[in-house]
């Protein structure tokens, strides 16, 4: 097991190098530069700035020095945010995204799994139809519809919450719901599918023949196998939920990581783009590994391999 984990961690190194390289050259290939939006910079100042950031160097030299810094864990200075390094920008935005994502993840699991179980246990009854429709609606409604809708009802009509901002604890509720309900929909569907598959297997009949109650059948015999699809989804899923969402951060005006993803590209802030992409890639790889380990814990057959 330990050897497997070490091997998997070593395997991530080429992945990250590849992500850094591709993003680096893509950003260089995009027309325009970080200074384009500034008005009328005198030529000598522009030259100075470019020299300061090393943008006057040949491409291979820029690449080599970037990768060299990366080795030391330095993601470089931001081209757009004066005097701030990419490390600092990520470090400032990450806690916000983690908090939002963490709450949203809890919402997703606490809504999605029970909904999926209920739908599977009462398959083809109105409970199933209601749960499945709700889940489908959660998946289909885009966040830019769900978010404003929640704001309209709970902030503007009932005035329970602020329409935007990230200042008070209760400011977390609406964005976390918006983000979490989408994932709750996916999780409910995966739970339902997984549970249905397990509930139709022979060993469930064996459990019933032993006199197990319906609760025991569902939670002790079926749930472990039924949640396997959810666990494999949660690997990339958690990465997505934790790194925030540009749309939700924009709707609710939240200083999270998702904004940097998008705005850095518009700003031609190459170091920030590569930094966020790398960070996301690392998180996806790490969480996929975690999902694999969790799956092995749930499934004894896989543990042996």
């Amino acid at each position, binding site marked *: 097991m330990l050897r497997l984990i070490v091997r998997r961690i070593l395997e991530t190194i080429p992945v990250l190098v590849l992500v850094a390289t591709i993003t680096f050259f893509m950003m260089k290939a995009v027309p325009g530069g970080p200074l384009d939006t500034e008005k009328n910079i005198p030529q000598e100042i522009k030259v100075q700035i470019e020299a300061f950031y090393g943008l006057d160097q040949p491409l291979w030299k820029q690449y080599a020095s970037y990768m060299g810094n990366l080795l030391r864990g330095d993601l470089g200075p931001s081209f757009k945010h004066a005097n701030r390094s990419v490390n600092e920008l990520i470090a400032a935005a990450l806690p916000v995204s983690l908090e939002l994502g963490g709450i949203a993840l809890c919402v997703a699991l606490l809504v999605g799994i029970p909904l999926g179980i209920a739908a599977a246990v009462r398959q083809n009854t109105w409970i199933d139809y209601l749960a499945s429709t709700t889940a489908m609606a959660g998946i289909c409604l885009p966040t830019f519809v769900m978010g404003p809708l929640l704001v309209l009802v709970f902030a503007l009509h009932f005035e329970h919450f602020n329409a935007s901002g990230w200042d008070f604890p209760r400011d977390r509720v609406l964005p976390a719901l918006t983000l979490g309900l989408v994932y709750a929909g996916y999780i409910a569907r995966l739970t339902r599918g997984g549970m249905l598959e397990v509930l139709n297997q022979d060993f469930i009949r064996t459990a019933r*023949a*032993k006199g197990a109650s319906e609760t025991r059948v569902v939670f002790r015999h079926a749930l472990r196998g039924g949640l396997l699809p959810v666990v494999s989804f949660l690997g990339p899923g958690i990465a997505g939920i934790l790194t925030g969402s540009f749309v939700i951060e924009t709707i609710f005006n939240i200083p999270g990581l998702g904004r940097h993803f998008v705005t850095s590209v518009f700003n031609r802030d190459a170091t920030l783009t590569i930094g966020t992409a790398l960070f996301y890639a690392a998180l996806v790889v790490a969480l996929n590994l975690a999902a694999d380990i969790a799956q092995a814990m749930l499934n004894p057959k896989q543990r042996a391999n």
Partner: protein
Amino acid sequence: MALLEVDDLRTSFHTRNGVVRAVDGVSFCIDRGETLGIVGESGSGKSVTCLSLLGLVPQPPGRIEGAGAVLEGIDLLRCPQEVLRGIRGRRVAMIFQDPMTSLNPYMTIEEQLMEPLLIHEKIDRAAAARMALQALQEVGVPEAEQRIRSYPHQFSGGMRQRVMIAMALIGKPDLLIADEPTTALDVTVQAQILDLIAQQQRQRGVAVIFISHDLSVVAGFCDRVMVMYAGRVVETADTRAVFREPKHPYTRALQRSRPAMQAKGAELYVIPGLPPDLSRPVPGCAFAPRCEFAVADCSRTEMQLQDVGAGQASACLRVQRGELTLQ
């Protein structure tokens, strides 16, 4: 008094293509310690009969009806769910056909063995674990102390079926239903498992309903045989009588189909035709279209199981009329 008395059991499945009468008026009884074999082709209703008794037929689409299935005063067809649940695994236990899929792959053998005790008895986990180990040793699993903590996929098919047997017997049931327990196993392992069931039965005096499509397996094992065709009982008799003097053409055809009964090199005997579609009941005897002795009356007269002497009952009209003697 019989341990279990089943009267006119009827189980049907309501599907999109109509009502499938999987079990159509089956009656039988079994005494304490007795072994009853139920024989028939796939789809003849033998498994569904037993699953119905324990309420293990999914409802819907299934529907279980009948005059009664009385286990020492408790009607299994009409008692509340909780009562039936208390009977499953404690008074009536079941072994299934495929040991590869009938054990939970996510739970250790120990957990699964302990479960009937934890469900039905007031017992702490330590005591249940001791009994689980003992049960596993009794069914002949080597190195039971270590292996009890492993998972089903670490066991071979035969060993898994031993686990199933241990699990079924751990609650000391009065009746064990074995649904083709050896069908999925190698021939050598089959004999071991049969021996094991027979030995456990002798030791505990448990009654066994043994479902099989294999007459020769039933012959060596059961006191009485009940032959089913198309959801109905066509013949019941003592095992020896069935072999010496079958009283229904279907029983005789089943016997003749055994490869061991045929001369080397001879073409294997097969019953012509296919079992009937149970969603379209045919008038008269369901076996008539495939029966070499059938006459016009067979498809006109309702089939009825009748005593034909020497404790033997047959549903064959011509046997009942004394027109037909089979051997």
